[in-house]
């Protein structure tokens, strides 16, 4: 052994080979780690690109400028200007006449029908009806109106309906393409910012559908959830951290809170259905009930956030307060809680952001109704933004996919803003001891 050649066993060929293999393995292992990160990031990027790629087009919409003659003979033959009669009048006829005057050489039935399909039928008639209803003096006058085109024309101009597909398999006929091209060339059809998407409510027609009612429903449900979950969550956390005696019962409460945080959200929906709707008889589809269910889901999150914020406050604060004669409750409420507030707020905002994206429990309590009015109170039937996304995603047409993606973009923007505010608050207000 002692008089081995200068080469040690670590330098032998076999050892060197082994070392090379081990080093290659090391590199492979590290490489797998990088690949895993890249895969996850690619998935995120793919998701965002696919949603943004379909969604951005819903933020603009083509609309058509038309000159309509509000014929007295059509709208108000009796000349009584009776509001009810005016509301029921045949506005379809008015729009059709305006189109026939624009393209006088269309005479056959099919052509006329196709021509009418260039504009959004209910969009145009409702627009004129509203104007006349508000101001009956308009009857007999000539108006210039801007109304959405039908969703097919909109999709054609956005390039989603391809022109080189054979006519039978295309939703827009060659003749319609001809009219549309002429209108575009004359500047009568233009792409404009899609205001309807933000001010409109749910609709059967994609060109008239908007997220206003869903946003209002979400906002109300979230307010209810916050009003309930925040005080209860903070109260429970303060009790458990500061006042609770250490016994079996408080242990049991803690286990409960940890478990609640992991219960599937749909189970909370079942609870809401059985207890809030069937047992307590609260109204179905209402943001009030939605908010109550979301509150039950988020308050464990708020408790956990509050407790960690309370623990981060230095004990010397409480000791100082106690030593100058404050009672325990005064020490906590006057000194500890204010210092923990940034952490509590951050946690609550993140909890609320989670609640905003929840869909399943809201399906259980009936917030899937087709709602065409903006809810005005928490007991009105309403949809919520994620539920609206779910409802729209069911329709296969391209125009709906576009609006679904756009609604997702709005939802994500709100979520990013909420989380951004939370991070900002944390970095700005949090103190370290």
């Amino acid at each position, binding site marked *: 052994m002692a008089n081995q050649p200068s080469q040690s066993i670590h330098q032998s060929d076999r050892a060197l080979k082994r070392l090379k293999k081990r080093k290659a393995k090391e590199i492979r292992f590290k490489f797998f780690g990088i690949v895993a990160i890249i895969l996850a990031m690619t998935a995120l990027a793919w*998701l965002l690109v696919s949603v943004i790629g379909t969604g951005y087009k819903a933020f603009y919409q083509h609309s058509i400028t038309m000159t309509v003659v509000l014929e007295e003979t059509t709208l108000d033959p009796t000349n009584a200007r009776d509001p009810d009669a005016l509301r029921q009048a045949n506005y379809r006829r008015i729009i059709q006449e305006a189109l026939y005057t624009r393209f006088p050489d269309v005479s056959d039935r099919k052509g006329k029908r196709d021509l009418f399909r260039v504009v959004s039928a209910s969009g145009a008639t409702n627009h004129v009806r509203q104007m006349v209803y508000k101001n009956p003096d308009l009857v007999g006058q000539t108006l210039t109106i801007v109304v959405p085109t039908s969703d097919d024309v909109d999709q054609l101009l956005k390039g989603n309906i391809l022109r080189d597909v054979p006519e039978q398999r295309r939703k827009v006929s060659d003749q319609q393409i001809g009219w549309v091209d002429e209108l575009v060339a004359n500047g009568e059809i233009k792409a404009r910012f899609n205001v309807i998407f933000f001010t409109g409510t749910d609709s059967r027609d994609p060109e008239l559908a908007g997220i206003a009612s869903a946003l209002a429903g979400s906002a109300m449900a979230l307010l209810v959830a916050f009003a309930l979950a925040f005080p209860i969550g903070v109260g429970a956390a303060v009790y458990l951290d500061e006042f609770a005696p250490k016994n079996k019962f408080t242990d049991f409460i803690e286990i409960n809170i940890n478990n609640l945080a992991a219960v*599937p959200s749909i189970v909370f929906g079942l609870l809401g259905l059985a207890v809030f709707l069937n047992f307590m008889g609260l109204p179905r589809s209402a943001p009030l009930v939605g908010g109550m269910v979301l509150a039950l889901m988020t308050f464990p999150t708020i408790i956990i956030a509050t407790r960690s914020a309370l623990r981060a406050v230095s004990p010397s604060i409480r000791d100082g307060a106690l030593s100058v004669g404050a009672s325990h409750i005064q020490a906590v409420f006057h000194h500890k809680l204010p210092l923990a507030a940034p952490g509590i707020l951050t946690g609550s905002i993140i909890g609320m952001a989670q609640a905003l994206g929840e869909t399943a429990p809201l399906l259980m309590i009936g917030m899937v109704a087709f709602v065409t009015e903006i809810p005005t109170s928490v007991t009105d039937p309403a949809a919520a933004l994620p539920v609206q996304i779910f409802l729209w995603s069911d329709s296969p047409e391209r125009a709906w996919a576009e609006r679904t993606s756009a609604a997702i973009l709005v*939802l994500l923007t709100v979520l990013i803003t909420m989380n951004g505010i939370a991070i900002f608050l944390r970095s700005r207000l949090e103190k370290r001891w």
Partner: protein
Amino acid sequence: MGNYTASIIALIAIVTALAYFYGRRVARKRLAVFTGNGTGKRFHSQPNYHGLFLGGSAAFTALVIFAAGMFVNAQPGDGAAIPPHLVAMAIALSAVAVTLMNTRLIRSDFRARRYVEFFINSALLLCSVIAVLTTLGIVLSLLFESLRFFEQVSIFEFLTGLQWSPQTALREDQAGQSGSFGAIPIFAGTFLVMAVAIFVAAPIGLMIAIYLSEYATKRTRGIVKPAIEILAGVPTVVYGFFALLTVGPTVRAFAESLGFAVPTQSAIAAGSVMGIMIIPFISSLSDDVINAVPQTLRDGSYALGATKSETMTKVVFAGALPGIIGALLLAVSRAIGETMIVVMAAGRAANLTGNPFEAVTTVTVQIVALLTGDQEFDSPKTLAAFALGLVLFVITLVLNVIALLVVRKYRERYE
């Protein structure tokens, strides 16, 4: 109704505030007499607390009367409801009476603060009891409705039957068609989707955790970790839409190019998107447990000449295994309870298969399918949803408890 409740609540708030300010003023005046005559006697409680005591008692009285009024009005039958203005009057009068009576109590030795603090303490206790009540509510409502379901369908058929077609239960006129509630195909579908999700998420999540804790520089970690966590913040309905609109068709196109047909809604599409959703879950939990392995173990391994990857796979991983298993169990529980992705991308018809390229249905999908749309609450069809919910709750609860126990045991090992 809403208007009435709102105005009563406003009235109660006003009464409470008035009582508070009145009590504080009276206490201040009486305190001033004390300090003025130089006897050196002091109040036990600050005027503030006397005010709070008076306000609290007024609010309590008002709420009791309000609740009593609601209770009487809610009694069915006679129809002689108490008119709102009468309730309002009763609230106002009794609050004033209680306040005036309490005014006598404002003295130097009256321990108003004690009472107020006792009240605050009880209120805080009540807040934490709500957590228990919620759990109790979940268990009772699921159990109660499930028992009603099992009165009509045997529990044995539910847990072992191979046929799931709840829709036929609606057609009562058809003899012999009572619907079949064998839930095995649903459990199998749930398991299949979960397995696909874990198959995607476990290796990726684990490798990310290992890379971030052992290889990444502090800067890379600071960028990559929050970026991965974005995946956890995306709402599930967005993942569902992504699975339906993008991943499903991609899987189908890919399979078609290989020469076999796959529906757009399939276990693989839903499962893989769900896997993406759980990646941050697994990676951050495993990251924690890997970091909890003491550095001395690593140092010992390096001292023996092991490379980083050898240390990782043979020493750290072995040490962290219980914690990682706990993390995986939590991820499984999460995957089983996930709803929107499968509702949108997995399919609705029960299908007993082990092939991930087919459409399957899951427990959560069936709950949604059974409970959305028109429902009569006593039919076995809607009650079946609660039985499924009970199964879901029990399974996730058991998984969570086991996982938490495993993780806790593991933590203690290195403390």
